[in-house]
């Protein structure tokens, strides 16, 4: 039960956090200047977007949940399980960020998810 909650936190908070960070980055705009000073200004701008803070907090929760699970389970099992976030990610991209997810992309995501499921069942 404890591990299921931790996995849910990794997937839920992780995906939610990534969506919030993604939304924040779209607000900041495209990076066109890769010089160090410009990158520092870029990240300073990103930190002024509240979605960034929500996202980073959620990713922090996901991170410590990941550490807790990794203390008991193998990396080659834990990391594929966290890929269950792909379905959530595609749905979030479509409904939260307003991105157009093409059929081909859905097919790719589906294929990845089937692969992940097989990885999980390949447990010794």
């Amino acid at each position, binding site marked *: 039960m404890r591990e299921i909650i931790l996995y849910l936190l990794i997937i839920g908070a992780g995906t939610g956090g*990534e*969506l919030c*960070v*993604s939304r924040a*980055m*779209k*607000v*900041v*705009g*495209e*990076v066109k200047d890769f010089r160090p000073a410009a990158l520092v200004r*870029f*990240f300073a701008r*990103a930190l002024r977007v509240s979605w960034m803070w929500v996202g980073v907090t959620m990713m922090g929760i996901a*991170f*410590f949940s*990941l*550490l*807790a699970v*990794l*203390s*008991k389970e*193998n*990396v*080659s099992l*834990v*990391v*594929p399980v966290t*890929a269950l*976030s*792909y379905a959530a*990610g*595609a749905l*979030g*991209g*479509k409904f939260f*960020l*307003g*991105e*157009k997810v*093409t059929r*081909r*992309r859905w*097919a*790719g*995501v*589906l*294929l*990845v*998810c*089937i*692969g*992940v*499921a*097989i*990885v999980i*069942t*390949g*447990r*010794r």
Partner: protein
Amino acid sequence: MKPSSSLHFKTYLLIFLMVIFGPLGNVLLGKGMKRIGAASMGTTPGAIDFVSHVVTSGTIWLGIGSLVTFFVAYMLVLSWADYSYVQPASSAAYGMVALLAHFMLREVVTPTRWMGVLLICLGVLVVGQTPPRTTEPR
């Protein structure tokens, strides 16, 4: 260089960095956490003990460094590319995790699991053929 090919080049470069540093970070975290042992976070002293072990582990900090590198590349690529493009494209990292876990941590990865990893990589190829941006820049 055309703008679209320039966009693809920097997208692929940053996704490449994500595929290297993300898995390396996870494997280092796994190594560090195996040394620390099972977390007992049900109680406050247990949680404090867990966090203090985490913050004093060199391997964990190396893992965090790798993940920070991954995260910076991830943030940069998300400033122009769609999330639903980047997230599946970076799933090649799952193949990398299996490889690193096998060679660095000596974890046993069964043939079935390798087959799953291959399917994930195939899915990545399908996703990689879609355009990196479908929304208009704001």
